[in-house]
């Protein structure tokens, strides 16, 4: 019964008394307990989830229920939920109990959402396979020999497996959209500033956004409706209210100008994926859209820019894990304060995290700052300018979400650079603060392929509206 239920249908079902919160929650919870061994999508289950669901049910009976009362969702384990472990899939935070709620959690709680558990991820969101986890790799429910993508692989996996109707993830360079693509679901990264980052454990602060993993674009819109808006705890949050979020409708393609970014369907992209994207966009014309190829020349720099800026910010953001106030502390005796730092961090961080800290320290260090970090900052502006120019002509830009099919488990370990380069399509939206959504458009060799739609900053509602239209009218038939 829970298979592929959407948030929208769950709310309707509760209100029409087709099923109860306790019933739905119990089934989801039981399914996770029975089946998640196969996928390892959760790190921690919320021990009071069932109790909270009963409270929600009582509210329906008393007619005091909130708008999303009793909707169960998964939360990536780098978003803080008070009194529950928040590990970031790292040994260094393996005992860290959240002392406060992230702003998005507070807001969802206030409309009745219940949090079923914390999902697996690449350590501190560094990775694109969910293999870099202290708690072991997550597997792709479509085919367990493959990775679910990352870093929000646990969130994608639990939605794809039907453990929850929706989950929150975080997206710094594609960490919501790419796993959505790999698992055949919808992954949405909002415009930078639309959702508060307060309570999201920082990786690359100028790039991070909380996003959603859902079955439909409409579900993404429902969740973001209650999470968005300026937060006095986050200076980078915005009070701009995008159109078509508060009263969501699907938006047809009539007279829409759509550009396909040429650089993302070229020689570096799996031909079968490019083919699928082109076939899909061809169908847009039938609905009155104009579709053209467009070029963004600075796109070739985006992976470099990203892998300079994100590690630079991360090297500083991850410096606070020093074993003094919380988290792991080395058990070595007779050490001085400096050794507490070095031993704790040596034990606590995995290899990829250490590597990115070192890269970050390099690009920020004296003598190299201008040539790497500052240059990357400038190139970031160049890329953003080119997007701005494109969006003067086009309503939406299209790319594959990933230029490659899901990796086999273990496949990427020996070629880390190849994994970095595979982020080509998703990184630009983070660098430029744009909203983007990945929707499933079909399969190649039985593995899901996602198409990414990008829009102007704060056109989030239009983006999801069009995404919903495309899913309903074009791509759902192909699945």
């Amino acid at each position: 019964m829970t298979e592929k239920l959407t948030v929208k249908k769950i709310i309707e079902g509760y209100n029409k008394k087709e099923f109860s919160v306790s019933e739905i929650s119990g089934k989801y919870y039981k399914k996770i307990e029975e089946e998640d061994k196969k996928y390892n999508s959760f790190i921690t289950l919320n021990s009071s989830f069932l109790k909270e669901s009963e409270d929600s049910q009582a509210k329906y009976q008393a007619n005091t229920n909130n708008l999303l009362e009793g909707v169960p969702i998964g939360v990536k384990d780098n978003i803080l939920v008070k009194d529950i472990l928040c590990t970031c899939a790292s040994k260094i935070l393996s005992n860290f109990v959240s002392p406060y709620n992230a702003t998005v959690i507070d807001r969802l709680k206030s409309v009745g959402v219940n949090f079923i558990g914390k999902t697996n991820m690449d350590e501190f969101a560094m990775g694109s396979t969910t293999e870099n986890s202290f708690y072991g790799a997550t597997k792709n429910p479509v085919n367990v020999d493959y990775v679910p993508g990352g870093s929000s692989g646990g969130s994608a996996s639990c939605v794809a497996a039907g453990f929850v109707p929706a989950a929150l993830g975080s997206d710094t360079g594609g960490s919501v959209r790419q796993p959505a693509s790999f698992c055949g679901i919808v992954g949405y990264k909002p415009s930078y500033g639309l959702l508060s980052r307060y309570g999201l454990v920082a990786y690359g602060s100028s790039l991070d956004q909380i996003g959603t993993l859902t079955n439909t674009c409409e579900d993404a819109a429902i969740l973001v409706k209650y999470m968005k808006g300026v937060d006095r705890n986050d200076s980078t949050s915005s009070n701009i209210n995008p159109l078509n979020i508060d009263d969501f409708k699907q938006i047809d393609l009539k007279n829409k100008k759509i550009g396909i970014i040429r650089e993302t369907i070229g020689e570096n992209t799996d031909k079968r994926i490019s083919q699928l994207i082109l076939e899909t966009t061809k169908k847009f014309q039938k609905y009155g859209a104009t579709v053209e190829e467009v070029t963004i020349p600075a796109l070739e720099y985006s992976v470099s820019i990203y892998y300079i800026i994100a590690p630079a910010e991360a090297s500083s953001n991850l410096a606070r894990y020093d074993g003094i106030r919380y988290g792991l502390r080395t058990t070595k005796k007779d050490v001085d304060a400096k050794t507490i730092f070095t031993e704790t961090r040596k034990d606590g961080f995995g290899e990829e995290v250490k590597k990115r800290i070192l890269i970050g320290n390099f690009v920020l260090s004296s003598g190299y700052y201008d040539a790497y970090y500052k240059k990357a900052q400038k190139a970031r502006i160049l890329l953003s300018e080119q997007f701005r120019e494109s969006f003067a002509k086009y309503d939406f830009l299209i790319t594959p979400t990933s230029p490659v099919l899901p990796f086999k488990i273990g496949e990427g370990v020996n070629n880390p650079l190849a994994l970095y380069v595979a982020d080509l399509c998703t990184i630009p939206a983070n660098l430029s603060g744009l909203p983007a959504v990945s929707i499933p458009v079909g399969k190649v060799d039985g593995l899901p392929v996602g198409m990414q739609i990008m829009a102007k900053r704060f056109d989030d509602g239009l983006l999801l509206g069009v995404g919903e239209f495309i899913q309903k009218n074009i791509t759902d038939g192909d699945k």
Partner: protein
Amino acid sequence: MSDKRHIDIDKLINLGSFEVSNEEKKQFEAGIEDFLKYAEVINSAPCNDLQPASHAIQKDAFLRDDNAKIWEHMEGLLKNAPILEGTSFLVPPQKGRTGKEKEVQENLSIKEVEDYETVIGLEVHAHLKTHSKLFCSCPTEFGNAPNANTCPVCTGQPGVLPVLNKESVNMAILAGIAVNCKINKKSVFARKNYFYPDLPKAYQISQFEEPICSGGWVEIEVDGVSKKIKLNRIHMEEDAGKMVHVGAPGIWGSKASAVDYNRSSVPLIEIVTEPDISTAKEAKEYVIMLRAILVSLGICDGNLEEGSLRCDANISIRPRGTKTLGVKTEIKNMNSFKAIERAIDFEVERQKKLKKLGLPIEQETRLWDESSQKTFLMRSKEESHDYRYFPDPDLLPLTLTDELIDSLRKKVGESPLDKKRKYQKDYNLTEEESKLMMVNPEYANYFEETLKLYNNPKNIANWFFNEILSYITQEFDKFHITADDFASFLKKIDSNEISGKIGKSVIRKAFDNKKSLMEIIETEGVKQITDTKEIENLIDSILNANQDKVAEYKSGKVKLFGFFVGEIMKQSKGKANPQVVNDILKGKIG
């Protein structure tokens, strides 16, 4: 750039504050090399003319109102602590806090002594008197239990973000205006990265390339000669926490440290001079003047001993008349005006001695030790940090409007030095009195308040410095006699309602009983008796009782006049107006 690039893997690992095995080290080095080779494609990006930015978005940062609020879930923070001592986070001691001083061999050949001049630059950190911290709403007040004034933000919990305090920005601008800086309409907060137990995020949010104020100067007077000390900048930053060394006193030899983050993120401004100060005395006078300016603006309480004003000095010497700066040392831990003067004098002599012995001066950071009156090596240049400053992506650039700057400009009054000059010239106060007013802006404020109600500056100064001040033992702004009260009191002295002698006792009683001067005068009946009838009756009774003395007086023993006056004053408990007594007495026994 690739041909010049060198990956110093040991340095990078040290900056990351972890350890790796040799094998891992090689792997990391190769991985970074691969990545950098790939990343260098951006060399060809046509973007050199673009302005670098942390975000591709245009938005003004919003600021927080300065309302203090205690965070109510402290136990949630403490329960995650690996080791607690009370409510403090416990850490082992810092080892190697002091460097090893090189031995100076006294028997080296002594070089001909050149004539050296001293070049000093000062960095003064001033706590701003806001109610709440720089980036969170925790109160800034001192004296609470360890970590009582902390929250997730100022203890660097995962996921927290800073939001800038509006009032701290206003205060920094006020300081900049008062010391003649250019106020920059755009400034940027940057992260200064280093590990220390009292620094919860392992970076301090400060300003680096784009501070809030640039340039400026502070005028001082040394031995009657005026000099303008040039400033480089003022920037805003957050303070670190405090470490209380448990087990043994002092920085060295203790067993553990208890970390208290109450001070973490308290707002500071750092006022940086150019290397424009020539003597220890100038340095001291500069800090005294700067303190006076900040205190008179009401933005800093100026307490050196409590650390709300802290001073570091960069010192070098060079042959007189030459232009190139010598190698500098940085002196820290000077906690009084006297310490500033002595530490600089000591350091200059130390440097001259090295020169004399033909030894190089090393660039290093040294600590002033009050008990031995010496500076000690803290860290050498090799140990100096690479702070990896970069713009804080959590804070958008701070932009200021002309309206704000203009409105603050109107709030900056006369400078303490101008006041001093005015008091000397227009009010005839002594140099010493005027300087005390300058150095203690709170005195000047009180003086001027009183002056508005009572127009005799010299009298105010006399009574203030000779009487009032001698009773003030606590903080000046907490003493209870208002300017209004003081002015009324002085008026009563002038009108002979009370004598000078009684006036002094009134002041003493007012302090003893924590009452106003007027209350003492009313309740204790110390008003002078000026009623002639009352005095006449008193005189008559005294003359009656001493008829023999009256006869002696009349027979020529005129000295007895004083006896009668004395008796009358005694009987009236000093309250009879002496002039009235004289007049009537003369009329009676004349």
